[in-house]
Structures are given as C-alpha cells and as structure tokens.
C-alpha cells in the first residue's frame, strides 16, 4: 500500500511542484492556506490535472505525463473528503451513502450502507436530508459515503475545520479508529498543527506549492530543518546566528551569545527554541541566562505567554521583544512577585538549528 506523487503544475501566479511518497501510516499535510495542500489532493483525485509528472497508487498508475496516462476521476477510485462535506442536498443520508455503490446488487448495497451507518452512528438519521443535520452529522455522513466505496486511498481536505471544538475532538478520536482499521494510504490536510500532530504519523510541510520538509512527526516538530517549517510548526523564537567559537554562537536578532552543546552545527544559519522550553530562573549565573525586561504578557485560559526583551537592549514596549516564554498560570503567579531583574534561560539542550 503506497502512494507516489511527483507532479508539477504552473498557474500564472502559483506553481505547484511537489514530490513525496506515502505508505500505510497516516500522512498529515501541513501548510498555510494557499500553500497548495488542497490542490495536491485534487490532483491525486483527478479533479485537477497536473502539467507534468506521475501519480502511482498501490502500483496502479493514475497519471503519467510521459506515458500519456491520465485516468478519469471516476476510474481512480480514491476517497476524497471535503471541508464543507459536499453532500447531495436532494438525497437522504442513506441515498447519499449509497451513491458511490449504486452499481452493486441491491442486497449487498443495502448491507454495506447499513454497516457504515452503524459504524458512524447515524442509523437514526437515514431518511433525513443534509439540511436537517448538524455539522458533525453531515461530516459523519460524508465519511460513510466515502468509506463505503472502499477507496484505494483516503484524502481528507481539512475535514474538521467547519466544526466547533467539542464535536471536532469527538470526530477526531473516531477518525483515528477509522484510520487504524483502514489499510490504505491516508493523507490528512490541515492547517492546525496540533490536530496534524495528533492524527498523523508522518508530516509533510508545504509552502508556496513545494514540500519544504517531510518526515516522521517528531522529527518535523522537534528538529525542523528550515525556518519556514519551524514557523509552520508553531515555533515562535527564531534567530539568525553567527559562529563565535566552537561552543558559542551569536543569536543575531536577540543580541546575545549562546553556549551550544558540542555538536556539528556547520551549515546552519538559524537557531530556534520553542516558547515552553525557555524558562524563567532566579540565578543569573546559569549558562545562557540573561537579565530581561517584560514587554507584554498575554494570558490564555491555562497558560501565560511572556514577551521578553533581553536587558540593555532598549525596548520595553508592547511590540519590541526578543523572546516569548510560555509558562503555566501558577508559575507566572510566583514569577510576578520576583524582584527585578528577571532572568531568562535558553538551555543549550533545547536549542535546535536550521537553514534559511
């Protein structure tokens, strides 16, 4: 079970040029809107026809510009799930689900439709029309409609983005069960990085029509290879760096020298550290510890983000800051009583290095 994609498509103001391989393990495609995620899925489904390249699914060539192969959308037998469900408004839930298997004999068709409605817990809605369903029920129907055809791969295009948080979490869990029992290739497009991490084993990061990194999810999240990937995976603290000596680099944007663990960092141009890895400490003599001033504090329900300016570098206004620190509410309550100067530590072990 695998999917090989290597396609190019030129538009006037956009260029899709993507190459990757996916296997049975769910692959998440992460990227900002307009990065070409959806277009990639649509190319695999055959709705968009690439200019050049090839697409091979489970050893079956769906598209090959050199050999002149281009299977029609209908022949490709892939399962594509849309963000807005795309149910047929004039058909009931049962008719919607049966749409893709209408050529099967009646008994078998009925059996499979009932089975899928059971699996998605929508039996009681069988004679309802899409407008009578909630968002979650619509997406379950759309999922059942796709799964019932037993497609060669599952392509999910931001399937939860139109749902509210509670339903979203619920459906996400159910989807993980479905993925576990489905033995084909699954591609999951999203711009929500936490959702992407939870759902996928492997992650492909896209930017401006290109794959900028690809690998197992921890690899991509913990050691992003380039600045764009770091930003898309939610890293807030990134700085250009210059080499000082074997154990020291200069963080250009932050205006400080940092000790680094002995490792090969030749060829890297930037360094980064995630905001929850930066810590507030009492002792100014610890390695990589700097006095700092607070520019701004933003509270969320369960955590606090402190925007800090390394001391002696001016600033102190809302927008002028060097580093973001994420900490718990409790830790912040203690920190708030500390006398100035506060100290911030950038632990060498948590630093990672990237290229532009």
């Amino acid at each position, binding site marked *: 079970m695998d999917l090989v994609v290597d396609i190019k498509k030129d538009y006037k103001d956009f260029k899709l040029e993507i190459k990757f391989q996916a296997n049975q393990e769910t692959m998440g495609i992460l990227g900002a809107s307009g990065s070409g995620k959806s277009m990639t899925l649509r190319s695999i*489904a055959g*709705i968009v026809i690439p200019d050049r390249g090839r697409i091979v699914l489970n050893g079956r060539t769906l598209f090959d510009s050199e050999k002149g192969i281009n299977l029609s959308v209908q022949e490709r037998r892939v399962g594509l799930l849309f963000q807005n469900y*795309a149910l*047929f*408004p*004039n058909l009931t839930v049962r008719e919607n689900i049966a749409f893709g298997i209408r*050529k099967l004999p009646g008994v078998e068709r009925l059996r499979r439709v009932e089975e899928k409605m059971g699996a998605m817990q929508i039996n009681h809605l069988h004679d309802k*029309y899409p407008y009578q369903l909630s968002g979650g029920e619509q997406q379950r129907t759309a999922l059942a409609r796709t799964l019932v*055809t037993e497609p060669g791969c599952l392509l999910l295009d931001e399937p939860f983005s139109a749902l509210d948080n509670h339903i979203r979490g619920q459906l996400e869990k159910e989807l993980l069960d479905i993925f576990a029992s489905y033995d084909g290739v699954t591609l999951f497009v999203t711009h929500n990085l936490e959702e992407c991490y939870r759902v996928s084993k492997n992650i492909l990061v896209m930017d401006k029509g290109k794959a900028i990194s690809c690998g197992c999810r921890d690899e991509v999240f913990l050691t992003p290879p380039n600045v764009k990937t770091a930003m898309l995976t939610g890293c807030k603290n990134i700085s250009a760096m210059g080499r000082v000596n074997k154990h020291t680099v200069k963080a250009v944007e932050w205006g400080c020298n940092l000790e680094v663990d002995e490792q090969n960092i030749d060829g890297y141009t930037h360094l980064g550290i995630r905001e929850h890895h930066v810590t507030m400490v009492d002792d100014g003599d610890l390695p990589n510890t700097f006095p700092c001033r607070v520019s701004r504090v933003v509270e969320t329900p369960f955590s606090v983000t402190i925007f800090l300016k390394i001391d002696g570098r001016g600033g102190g206004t809302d927008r002028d800051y060097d580093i973001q620190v994420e900490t718990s509410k409790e830790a912040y309550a203690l920190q708030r009583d500390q006398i100035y100067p506060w100290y911030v530590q950038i632990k060498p072990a948590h630093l990672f290095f990237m290229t532009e």
Partner: protein
Amino acid sequence: MTLDLSPLWISLKTASTATVITIILGIALARWMVFGGGKGKEVIDTLVIMPMVLPPTVVGFALLLIFGKSGAIGQLLATVGASVVFSWPATVITATVVAIPLMYRTARGAFEQIEVNSIDAARVLGASDWYIFWRIIIPVSLPGIIAGIILSFARALGEFGATIMLAGNIPGKTQTIPLAIFLAVESGETQTAFIWAGIVLLISLSAILAMNYWSKIQYKFDQRVRS
C-alpha cells in the same frame, strides 16, 4: 355572436411546442455554459440573449431575413420544397426564439448555484457526467428550472411582434390569441378582445399556480421552499 376558438388551439399548440423545444435547448445551452468546456461561450451567450433585449419586431425582421426566400435557412428549405414563412411552424420558431433567453438565463442561474464541490464529490464517487446531471444537477436546480419554464411558456403564449412579422395573421392557421386580440381591437370588437384577454389571463394563472404547487410538494429537501 359565435367565437372562433381556433386562436386558442393555435396558441396552446404553439406555446406548448415552443416551450418543449425551449426547455431542451435552454437547459442544454445552460449546461454547456456552466459545466462544459470549449470556446466561443461569450458569442453564443450574447446571441441567445439578444432576442430578450431587442424589440420583437426587430427579431421578427431578422428571422424573416434568415428564413425568407433569400435567407440562408430559407434557401436550404426551398431545396426540399418547404417554406416556413407565413406557416404554423413560423409561430413556433418565433415563440421559441423569444422564450429561450428566459429559460436559458434561469437554468444557468440555477446551475451556477450548485456547489462545485458536490459535483466533484459525485465524480470522485464514480458517477458519470450524465448520471450527475440527472441525479443531482436537475433535481437540485428544479425550482429554478420550473420558474424558467413558467416564464418561457408565458412569453411564448404572449408573443406578438415577431410572430406577425414571420408568420403573419392568418385566421385558423397562424392567428394566435394575441394576434386575435389585436385584430379584434382594430376592428372595434371590444367584447371579443375582452374574452380573449380573459382566456389568456386564465391560462397564465393556472400554469403558474399548478407549477408552484407542484414544486412545493416536490421540494421536501429544500429548506427555503418548505419554510
């Protein structure tokens, strides 16, 4: 006074025939415009819409030029010994030409409302374009199509200017109700004119009522119609 009922039958026959042709051509055109490929869409679109904005007499004059003895189609028909000018088919031709823009525009509007994703979803699920057309596109846009049919029928029934140019006003042959009303008023038979006007009103009203009623019971899936 005995009323010659032939204008009624001619009108009904003409309007019905023209409406059937209009439905087929109008929907086929709209389908091609919205879902089809190919070039020259703007040109065809303009040509089809023209009769809606031109005075009917100009349409009639243009048709006379095309179907007349020296016109392109007129000459073609002459080779098989046929002629449409001043014959019953001429009433159908003019009624169709003036009604098509209405059918075409409303059907096109309805098709454009359909979510492209649901059509793509149907294709991904293996449905052919024809199947999608009959199973999804037509049912979903039926309210719009019905509106188009009502408008087209009413327009075909009321057609006057182009008809008198191409088909003339021959009693028992090409004289439709609007032409009969014109003749009655012109010759001072006000009462006859009233009767015909009343008949037209009845036909139009019942057509609208029947179709509205039917679309309501048909559209159980559409929230807008129901509420």
